[in-house]
Structures are given as structure tokens and as C-alpha cells.
């Protein structure tokens, strides 16, 4: 009898823990990239050059990784919804680094001056024309 109770109790605890864990997973927000340590720290020129040289290899290395990129601000775009995007010059006229900002970080992006050096942290989503980082914030 005692054994049965123990088993039942064990099952109950497992069930609660399982449900709890499921609930936790279900409600889990995507990681806040601002709080993550960068996997790679490099310049805008380097990351663009690596994608140009071998996109497959660069994808394998950088996709979904947090990248801290240093470069010169080529342009800042803020759309009507307040979404901010910063473009970093890579030295290659055909490809820049597009940094799509967290909406909470849009204000700091807006204040960036063209031609100044900046370090931006974000998650790499791949390369279209530019190498694209999203969930960006300014680190320096």
C-alpha cells in the first residue's frame, strides 16, 4: 500500500513538473539578444567579405549567432511605425550590413550620425544583398 502511494505520488509530481515545464516552454519568450554575449566580434567589412567568399560556410558559422559588428554608419532609416534600421559600410559598394533594431532601441539608432563608427550587436539571419542582423542594439 505504501509502495503504491509512493508510486502514485511520484507520478503526480512528474505530471505536475511535466505540465509546468510544458507551460514554461509554451510561454517562453525568444531570448533577448541585448542580454546575450556575442558569439563573434568582427568588423562589417570582415563579415561581408566572408559571406561574399563562401555563403554556405558563412551561413554555417554565423546563422542564428549573436554578432557584434563594428563599422561606419552609412545610413539610418526610420519608418512611419518607428522601426529603425542602421546600415554599416563594409567597403563593398554592393553589400552593407543591415541592422534591424529592437523597437525599444529605435531612439538610440535615430541619434546615430552618418560617418561615425559604431558597434552594433544583433542576431545574424543571413545574406540577401546585405548581411542582415536583426534584434539589434548599440553596444558602443
Amino acid at each position: 500500500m505504501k509502495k503504491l502511494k509512493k508510486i502514485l505520488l511520484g507520478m503526480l509530481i512528474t505530471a505536475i513538473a511535466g505540465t509546468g515545464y510544458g507551460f514554461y516552454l509554451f510561454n517562453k519568450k525568444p531570448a533577448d539578444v541585448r542580454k546575450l554575449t556575442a558569439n563573434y566580434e568582427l568588423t562589417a567589412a570582415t563579415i561581408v567579405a566572408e559571406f561574399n567568399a563562401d555563403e554556405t560556410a558563412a551561413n554555417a558559422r554565423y546563422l542564428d549567432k549573436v554578432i557584434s559588428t563594428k563599422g561606419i554608419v552609412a545610413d539610418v532609416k526610420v519608418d512611419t511605425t518607428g522601426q529603425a534600421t542602421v546600415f554599416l559600410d563594409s567597403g563593398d559598394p554592393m553589400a552593407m550590413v543591415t541592422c534591424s533594431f529592437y523597437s525599444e532601441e529605435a531612439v538610440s539608432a535615430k541619434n546615430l550620425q552618418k560617418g561615425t563608427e559604431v558597434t552594433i550587436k544583433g542576431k545574424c539571419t543571413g545574406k540577401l544583398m546585405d548581411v542582415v542582423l536583426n534584434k539589434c542594439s548599440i553596444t558602443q
Partner: protein
Amino acid sequence: MKKLILASIGFFMIHSSFAQKRYFTKTGTVSFRAGTAVEDIDGINKSTTSVFDATSGQMEFALLVKGFEFNSALMMEHFNENYMESDKYPKSVFKGTITNIDKLNFQKDGVYPVTVKGILEIHGVKKEVETTGSFKVSGETITSTAEFSVTLDDYKISIPGLVKDKISKTAKIKVNCSYAILK
């Protein structure tokens, strides 16, 4: 005679430079809704690249599937790994034409209805789509909006039975772009 030829070449060049007036954006927004009454499933991509030619009406969109942002970590994971297989199919592309481009006057501010027709590639599957939307011309900026639906099954995106009541069989896609003249 030589002068005439040169003049006609010159005229042709000026003419073709007008003809190639293109509008461009790298910060287009594509969002989708594929939820049901049971659950909201929304994703948004804010770095969509798009270009169109103001004369021929040719239009293209490209986006990185991994660039979609979600409110839930699990949704993001399922979207990338199970449904879109973004490692295998990293990009989605649309290539088509604005079929009523001749009705648009880019010199005159205003809102114009547009019809766009072309091939949409999602999840490695190409399919023809047609939708209506609008172009708002204000000076040198064009703001575009369009909304249409795709059937997930058409793009070989299969939904497991367990979550069938949570995920809609069609996804509503919204496209918003703010174009500038490509110099």
C-alpha cells in the same frame, strides 16, 4: 549623318535612363498570421528587400526566413525547424509584375490601386500568386501595402495532426514597403 546617329544614340540613352527609373527598399516589412481562435501565430520580418521598375512594372521581393520575429521562442523554433525548414530553404522570393503600371503617375502624389502578379517561392516551392494592393506616391517616396493569403499545403508545409486546430490552413500575408528612388 554621323551627327544624326550620335544624336539619336544620345536621345536613346536619355530615354532609356528615364525608362529605368527604379524604386528600392531594404527595410520592407512582411508579416503573417497563421493562427486560429485557439492561438495567435504571428511573425514579422522587417528587413525585406524589394525593387520595382516604374516603367515596366517588374517587381521583386526577397527575404530571409530566419529574419521572422515571434513572441514565443517555441513558435520561432517550430516555424524554422519544422514548417519552413529555414536551414534548407533560407530565402523566400517573389518575382512578378505590376500589371497596371501604366495607370500610375509617379509625378503626381496620390494613392493608386495596384495589381501584382507573379511567382512566389516559399519553402522551395514556386507558385503563381496574384493580389491587389496600393501605392501611395508622395514626392520621391512610394509607400506600398498589400495583403493576400497563401495555402500552406500549396507550399508543402505540412502541419502535424496534434496541432491542426491551432494552425490555420492558410496564412494571411501583409506586405508594407517604403520605397526610395534607386540612384
